[in-house]
């Protein structure tokens, strides 16, 4: 009998945490708007993974429903976010967000 490694919910949650942390660190340390945007996507998907894991673990459908909502929001966010990034790029020939500090106090 093959000794199968059982993939439990913990594994998924750990992966999700790792993904989220990568996304968060990316947000903190990268200046390129496009990369930051990707990091946001990463974090969103990490959350999605958590939802699905919880759904499977608890045997409830609610988590999967929440994921659909997150996907819809993410899609909408992509539209707006990409438009903003394009206009930033048009303005300063670079996608760096550090230059956009006119709201500085």
């Amino acid at each position: 009998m093959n000794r199968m490694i059982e993939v439990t919910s913990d594994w998924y949650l750990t992966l999700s945490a790792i993904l989220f942390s990568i996304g968060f660190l990316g947000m903190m340390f990268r200046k390129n708007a496009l990369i930051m945007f990707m990091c946001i996507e990463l974090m969103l998907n990490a959350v999605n993974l958590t939802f699905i894991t919880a759904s499977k673990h608890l045997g409830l459908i609610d988590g999967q429903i929440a994921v659909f909502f997150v996907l819809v929001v993410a899609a909408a966010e992509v539209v707006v976010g990409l438009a903003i990034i394009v206009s930033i790029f048009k303005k300063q020939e670079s996608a760096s967000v550090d230059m956009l500090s006119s709201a500085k106090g």
Partner: protein
Amino acid sequence: MDILILAVVALPLLTALFLKVASKFLNELLTNFITINAALLSVGVSFLMFGYLFLDKFKPIKFELFEWYPSPQIIFEFYLDGLSGVMMVLISGLSLVIQLFSTSYMSKDEKYTKYFEYFNFFVFSMLLLVLSGNFLVMFFGWELVGLSSYLLISFWYEKNSAAKAGNKAFILNRIGDFGFLIGLMMILNYFETFNFVDIFDSVLIKQPSNLDLIILFLLLGAFGKSAQFPLFSWLPDAMEGPTPASALIHAATMVTAGVFMLVRVSPMLQFSELASLTIIGFGLLTALIAAFAAINQDDIKKVLAYSTISQLGFMFIAIGAGAYVAAIFHLVTHAFFKALLFLGAGAVIHEMHHEQNIHKMGGLRKKMPITAAMMGIGTLAISGIPPLAGFWSKDEILASVFSKGGIYYGFWALSLLAAFMTAFYMGRHWLLIFVKEPKNNLESIHEAPKNMTRPLILLGIFTIFIGFINTPFFHGLEKVLEETLHHVEVTHLPKGLTLAVLAVLSIGAGFTGLALAYLIYIFDIISYFKLKIPFINEIKNLSKNVIFINDVGNIVFVKGLKSVSRRVAVTVDAMTIDGIVNGISKYFLKSSKQLSYTQTGLVRNYVVYFGLFTLILVLIFLISPEVLA
């Protein structure tokens, strides 16, 4: 008949209103036509009323215009008795004469029509004051004469000094009016009516306990309006107005409003010993200070202004001594000779091309014989030389004071001194203008136009004869006022030899004053005998600056209040109130500035905050899960 009272009051008002409305279409001739005819009509009606009153043995006539307030009942009413009758005839008569003079004096002035508008408005206010049937209507007239006086003093408001003089007169009068108003409130509080007749009837039966206080407050009003010490300094400044207006307002009528009011309230006044002593004390002080000040004035009108104050002091002395008839008598004679002197001064000023310094005049009697003669009559009259008007009235005052006896002998002596000083400064005034050798070339000066000399001659004639209305041999005015002063104890003249001696003394004072003026200013006795009078310069200085009353007032009231209010402005307003308000706003500005450093504008930092607070949230959840539940 009684509706004619309304006509007397309303006529000048309507004239003023008409002149105001139609001023654009009126030239000088049309204005003259309207105002002189209105004044003539006014005089006619006044004399008609007075004649009617005379035939009716001066039984008072009442006229109620409308009820103003039901309880306590206040009626807009008029009251015509001997007292207001005399004032009415005096005011409308003098206003006619002075308007005649003004047509020439004010000629070619830009605001010619406006002048007559104000003038008529003043006459209306004054008539309202004297014909009022209760205290409230009187207060209206009282305030309105203040207003019209203000308008006429600052008539040439382009001149800064004129505008300031108007303000000064108004403010000093307000001090008096404030007292008058408080007196009125106390009267209403006690008597629950303003009607003269009701109040005087009830005061005869029972005197209020605060009668002294009421009278003293009314007195403050009289002091302000009649320019008594210490509220007199507005009157000399009021000479900035047109001279004929000064003649009517600041010599003949308005300033006597206080005297009139006190005689009107004499039924109350007789019960207050304190008030009588206050009146005579301040009257004497005023008469002496003003006479002293008049000795060394250089301005032709200022001498007359101080002389007016001094003569008003005499009237107050008479009231204080209880000689109400003498006070009104002096009021009437003074109105004539002072109007004469003022109009004479106006003629001189007009011909001297608005030069008012008497030292720059001299020898004018050859150039202006009629004016000189008429002003001479006025000077003799005010000095108390018989048989001119001033003698009879002033002598009556002096004799009445004497006849009271006791401490009043001292008052009499001081009054006699004031009378002597009056003769002295008036002699100096006339001699410097008309007799003394002129220093400047006055070749081009000639007699004033006929429209000026005719009113002068008319007033001159009155000045000679008006005294005969009330002599020791013929008590005309006393009979006129008999009904008014029915229940009032009036001080009467002494009889026989005492009266004769007193008369001789007062004539002596007059002649000595005039003679001394001649010796000093024409004969120049001081340098002739090389006399040395100690402290002469100090005395001259004191007189010229009116014993520094303006400066004292300036330091105490103006500067004192200014520094106090400045301090209050700095400590309370700028430091406390502004400090609190600005401090609050500064605090928020500062703290928000510091808080705003967290807004770096870098997205990365915001992410860090975001993460930080998420972590905190998670921590809270871990420590106590029930918080989020």
